[in-house]
């Protein structure tokens, strides 16, 4: 009953969840993140169902189609999914004490994440040139139904997701630096697992956002 268990991260846990504090804390934090994105996505759903017309994919822009470049974003989605698999591979590598694998996969994850943010910035710039902003240009507002509402919800949701990815990339760089200094071992690699949870969560949110914002 009184046995103390040493877990990854060098933390001793008392009878409780039997996982170390950092991991439990990250899960609890992610629960609140779910509610944050519920607020944003919920607002989008309600605003969208409150109006009749909405820009649809697969329809030419002139006939009320979406101004978004779906193919580019589909490619971006693919990159984020790839970064998730490299992340989980990095974790699997250090579980076996494979330092080289850990470093290689972490670097790949950082690069993929940074590329995702980069492409999103490119997308934003292109859209802004077209006149698609939280307040659309008059030409665009004439063809895209509820353009202002579309712009408001689009930039808020994808912007907050992009911010989450950027924070993730920064943290990932920090973890990567620590990995190159050999701070993680087969027994002690809580940092990799915790950042991984956050990273996969951000990926998961994007999977939902991509469908809701771009495809529906």
């Amino acid at each position: 009953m009184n046995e103390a268990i040493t877990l990854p991260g060098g933390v001793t846990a008392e009878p409780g969840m039997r996982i170390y504090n950092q991991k439990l804390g990250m899960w609890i934090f992610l629960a609140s993140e779910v509610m944050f994105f519920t607020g944003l996505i919920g607002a989008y759903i309600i605003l969208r169902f409150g109006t009749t017309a909405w820009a649809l994919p697969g329809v030419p822009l002139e006939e009320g189609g979406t101004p978004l470049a779906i193919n580019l974003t589909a490619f971006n989605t693919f990159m984020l999914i790839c970064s998730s698999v490299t992340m989980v591979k990095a974790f699997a590598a250090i579980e076996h004490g494979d330092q080289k694998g850990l470093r290689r996969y972490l670097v790949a994850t950082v690069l993929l994440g940074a590329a995702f943010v980069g492409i999103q910035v490119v997308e934003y710039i292109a859209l802004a040139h077209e006149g698609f902003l939280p307040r659309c240009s008059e030409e665009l507002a004439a063809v895209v139904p509820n353009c202002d509402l579309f712009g408001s919800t689009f930039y808020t949701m994808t912007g907050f997701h992009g911010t989450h990815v950027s924070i993730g990339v920064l943290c990932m760089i920090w973890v990567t630096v620590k990995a190159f200094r050999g701070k993680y071992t087969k027994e002690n690699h809580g940092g990799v697992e915790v950042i991984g949870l956050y990273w996969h969560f951000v990926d998961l949110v994007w999977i939902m956002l991509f469908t809701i914002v771009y495809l529906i």
Partner: protein
Amino acid sequence: MMETAEKKKQPSYMLIWFVLLVLTIVEVGVAYVSSLPRNVLIVVLVGLAIWKATLVAMYYMHLKFERLRLILLATAPLPLAIILIVAILLEHAR
């Protein structure tokens, strides 16, 4: 899918990745080929998205291999999220 579940400790991450990739392609394809009625299309696309999200949570976040308590904790916000959205949507069903 079944094989990965059996190998409890080592799910095949590449296989999951492949499934996610295929599902994404299917999604984009379905969205472009809009011969389906709008409502059916929405249900299909959201269903696919939830499937993908569940895969990520289950395998990449290892939720499938955690204790029940942690699973409960992680999914606790979902009922609240559903309550919020459904109740406000009822508002518009007038």
